């Protein structure tokens, strides 16, 4: 059975999804015709994995709706950059606007889906994604707080644990917060988890992993059905 066949203890060597696979899995969550903002990090890889048959209108908080792929060498226009300063192309039907309107779209509930990276997500759906305690420098917020406050559906993509093996899904965030009770779905290198009023629902697990193994690496209780499907990529 997918996801419950392997019963040995978790070891560091056991393969997890790559960042690209997390992005690929998350791409399936995007609705056809939806307006979507992709944040820094893993979310920024998602556009490459969009199913051919659907169209998504990508929003950039610096004032673009309808971004296409990144510009190829020679076709860059440095007045047409995304929120990561990278020159992009447009798809037909794109539009430009100033930043107040761009963030109005985020904060006002007009985006269908936003996908952000995360340092921690709590069992209530609180998100920490902008500052690591003790990190050097000023830190920076950017558009994440407006996006987290306003998107109809917020997906967080991240590794399931830190490099030291500590859970990133926790009972309470200990890192500086981005927004409270904002996350709807978490896609990690081990699982797809929905944040619901009743708790964290384990929707899918990565190939070769069991619900119990995922629970061991999670800092908050997961609600798991009898059979948890394997994470799907199509």
């Amino acid at each position, binding site marked *: 059975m997918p996801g419950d066949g392997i019963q040995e203890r978790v070891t560091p060597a056991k393969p997890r999804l790559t960042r690209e696979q997390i992005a690929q899995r998350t791409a399936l969550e995007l609705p*056809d015709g939806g307006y979507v903002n992709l944040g820094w990090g893993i979310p920024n890889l998602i556009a490459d994995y969009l199913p051919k048959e659907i169209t998504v209108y990508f929003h950039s908080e610096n004032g673009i*709706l309808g971004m296409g792929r990144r510009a190829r060498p020679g076709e860059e226009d440095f007045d047409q950059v995304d929120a990561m300063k990278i020159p992009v192309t447009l798809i037909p039907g794109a539009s430009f606007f100033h930043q107040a*309107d761009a963030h109005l779209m985020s904060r006002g509930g007009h985006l269908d889906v936003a996908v952000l990276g995360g340092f921690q997500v709590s069992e209530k759906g609180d998100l920490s994604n902008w500052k690591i305690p003790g990190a050097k420098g000023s830190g920076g917020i950017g558009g994440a707080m407006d996006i987290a406050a*306003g998107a109809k559906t917020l997906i967080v993509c991240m590794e399931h644990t830190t490099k030291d093996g500590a859970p990133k899904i926790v009972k309470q965030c200990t890192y500086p917060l981005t927004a409270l009770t904002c996350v709807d779905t978490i896609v990690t290198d081990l699982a797809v988890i929905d944040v619901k009023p009743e708790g964290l629902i384990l929707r899918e697990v990565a190939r070769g992993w069991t619900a119990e193994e995922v629970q061991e690496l999670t800092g908050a209780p997961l609600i798991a059905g009898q059979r948890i499907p394997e994470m799907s990529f199509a």
Partner: protein
Amino acid sequence: MKQKLYATLDQAVADIPDGAQIMFGGFGGAGFPNNLIQALARKGTRNITAISNNCGTREGELGLMFKNNQIKHVIASFPGPHANYFQERFAAKEVTLELVPQGILCERMRAAGAGLQGFYTTVGVGTEVAEGKEERFLEGQRCILEMPIHADYALIKAHKADELGNLTYRLAARNFNPIMAMAAKTTIAEVEEIVPVGTINPEHVMTPAIFVHRLVQAKGLRYAG
């Protein structure tokens, strides 16, 4: 993918239920969704809360809604001397009215669209508009708290649209339409012309498609007052 383009005006308003809160664009005879208003009259939706700068010109613009007694409450800035159907219903207490300064009407709708939960302004301080509103000093000035105005639907009028819902407006017919498009859960635009996707310069889009949920082509029908 969900299509925004509707074949008829009646289909575009077919699900608007009794009791809906509806914004209506237009100012001074320009930019009124007259064709959608007529469709809403045919549909017969009642007990509407209408948000509109004025209350129609005789039977024209929003006037038809009052003639048909479809509206129970209005949030408006300037109902207008030629809004005789409104004035009759208002005198008969069949319609209630909240009068709002015109710029504050815009800001309250924009606040709803922008996901803000209220703002302070000096406009209206010391006047009837301030009655019942929280007052405080901010930045050394007497201010009142104004709350967002949300809507279930916005009926707006644009000049051109592509099939994705990107809109442009002609001249001063822009007026309230872009603000209302941002503020409503479902924005329905009547447009004079549908153009192919990609033919509106992205720099010249006045209402980006994200704010537009239904489109219907309709020509003519203007009330010059």
